[in-house]
Structure formats: structure tokens, C-alpha cells
């Protein structure tokens, strides 16, 4: 049997995670993997999906950030997804960085919570995202981010 195509979703907890999960229809029929800072979501994913826990980190705690980055790197290296997708925050930024470095297709969908400007992690992710998306039409620019609609 042909192996399923693999996608890795990466985010922090709360709204980022909920938005990420709403992107599932784009990957119907794929093997979907998740990496998130909230271990509690492990029990909420669908059958056939896989979950990896990530350490929490804020951008003020450099040691935790390095640990988190290392975990994201190791998950991408181990699972070798074809595509890496994120909606936000530091784990998502690392996923773009390492995903790109390992030759994966990277997709950043900036959180719909950012109405007036792109998130900080979203601005930084730009360099490493092959597809860079905002969920607000007024934030779209010809050079990116692009707008195609929203998860709500």
C-alpha cells in the first residue's frame, strides 16, 4: 500500500491550536501529526492522527526557548513530514525555520487574532515560510502575506 503523505501541524495552546485544527480539511487523506505545548490536547485528536508534546516557552526565557527549538527540530527530523504548518507563536516559528532547512514545504497561517498587524512570530516566520498567509484582507500585500479567507 502506498504510504500516506505526511503533514506536521505545530502551535502553542489555545486559539492557535483551535485554528490549526480547523485547517484539517486541506489535508484530508493525509497522515496528520501535531506538536503542541499543551499535552492535554493529546486525547482530543482524531483516530489515525499523532501527537507530540512540546515544552512551553516565552520569548523572555531563552533556555526554555532553546529546549523548545530542539524538540521541534527533533520531531521534524524523526517524522520527516512533507509539509509543516503553523498558526503561531514560537514553536511555529521554529517549525518554519527547521522545516525549511530540512527541505520541507512550510506554511504559516497567521492567527485571526491579529487584526491590526501581523504577529511578531508571523513577521519573523516570513523568511522561512514557503506560503505566508494572513487571515485579514487588509493586511495582505503583493509581496506577502497572502489572503485567501479565514478559518472563521
Amino acid at each position, binding site marked *: 500500500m502506498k504510504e500516506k503523505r505526511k503533514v506536521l501541524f505545530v502551535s502553542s495552546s489555545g486559539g492557535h491550536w483551535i485554528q490549526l485544527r480547523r485547517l484539517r480539511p486541506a489535508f484530508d487523506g493525509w497522515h496528520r501529526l501535531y506538536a503542541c505545548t499543551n499535552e492535554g490536547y493529546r486525547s482530543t485528536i482524531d483516530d489515525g492522527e499523532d501527537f507530540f508534546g512540546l515544552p512551553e516557552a516565552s520569548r523572555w526565557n531563552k533556555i526554555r526557548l532553546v529546549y523548545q527549538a530542539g524538540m521541534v527540530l527533533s520531531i521534524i527530523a524523526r517524522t520527516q513530514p512533507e509539509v509543516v504548518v503553523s498558526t503561531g507563536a514560537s514553536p511555529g516559528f521554529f517549525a518554519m525555520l527547521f522545516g525549511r532547512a530540512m527541505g520541507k514545504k512550510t506554511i504559516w497561517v497567521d492567527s485571526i487574532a491579529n487584526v*491590526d498587524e501581523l504577529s511578531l512570530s508571523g513577521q519573523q516566520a516570513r523568511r522561512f515560510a514557503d506560503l505566508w498567509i494572513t487571515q485579514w484582507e487588509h493586511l495582505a500585500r503583493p509581496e506577502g502575506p497572502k489572503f485567501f479567507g479565514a478559518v472563521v
Partner: protein
Amino acid sequence: MIFVTVGSQLAFDRLVEVVDAWASNRTDVQLFGQVGDTDKPPKSFPSVSTMSPEEYQKRFSEADLIVGHAGMGTIIAALELGKPLLMLPRLGSLKESRNDNQVGTARHFRSFALFEVVESESEIPTRLDHMLASLDEYRGASDEFGVGDSLIDAIREFVDS
């Protein structure tokens, strides 16, 4: 039952304190809170700092009304479960969040039938009384709520290119 929730990241005492004061005068109303890591938990109703996603879903489903911040997690859950939501946006200037993005979020979503937005916590008591008195009006309310096909299509097209 009113479910008061501040999301998974930070406490939001400005919101919880005013709901607490309101609740102490409304002993006819049951409340439960998810209030984050705070040294000022509510006195007039039970609360926890965080809860599991299953517990959160359960509390949310059982509630007649949600009071919360203008976070996307709360907003999407309210839309999915069709719950009226009263929201107070966190302010960056009060260090309640990194920036004022919730003000923008609240501005966008305030036109939704299920949602009420207050700019100041002082408006919460009257708004809560009003929402509780008109719960029936929210029952029939539904808001357009789906993932944009164009977003899903754009991602599909990109990964297949």
C-alpha cells in the same frame, strides 16, 4: 450557568473581579470560573486556574452564557457551540497581553449575533443582567461560521504544486 473563562495563557483579574462582585449580588445565578494563575481568585463562585480540553468543552457546553476575554479560542468555541459570549478585550497597556490585538478582534466580532463586547469592565454588570434576561433571543441566533473554502483550496493547491 455562566462560565467565566480567561483562556490558557494569562490571568485576567480585571474581568474576574467585576464578575465576582456582580455574582455576590446575584445568588440566583450559578457560575464557574477558569481564571488562570492568580492570587485573586473569585470568592462568590468556584473556579480553577486551568482545565483539560475535555473539561473545558464540558463546562462550555453546559453553560447558558460565557464571559471571557476576546481570545480566538474562546470565540471559536462559542461559535461552535452556539453560546452567547460577553467579552472584554485584554489591553496591552495594562500588561494583560503583549499588545492590543484583542481590541481589534473584539471590534471585528462585535457584529456577530451571539457576541456582546464591552470596552470597560464597569459595563459588565448591566450587560450581564441584560444578557441573562434575554437568553431566549440568543438561542435562535446563529452566525455564519465555516472555514473559507478558498483558504483550504489555496493550501491544497500549494501542497500539490
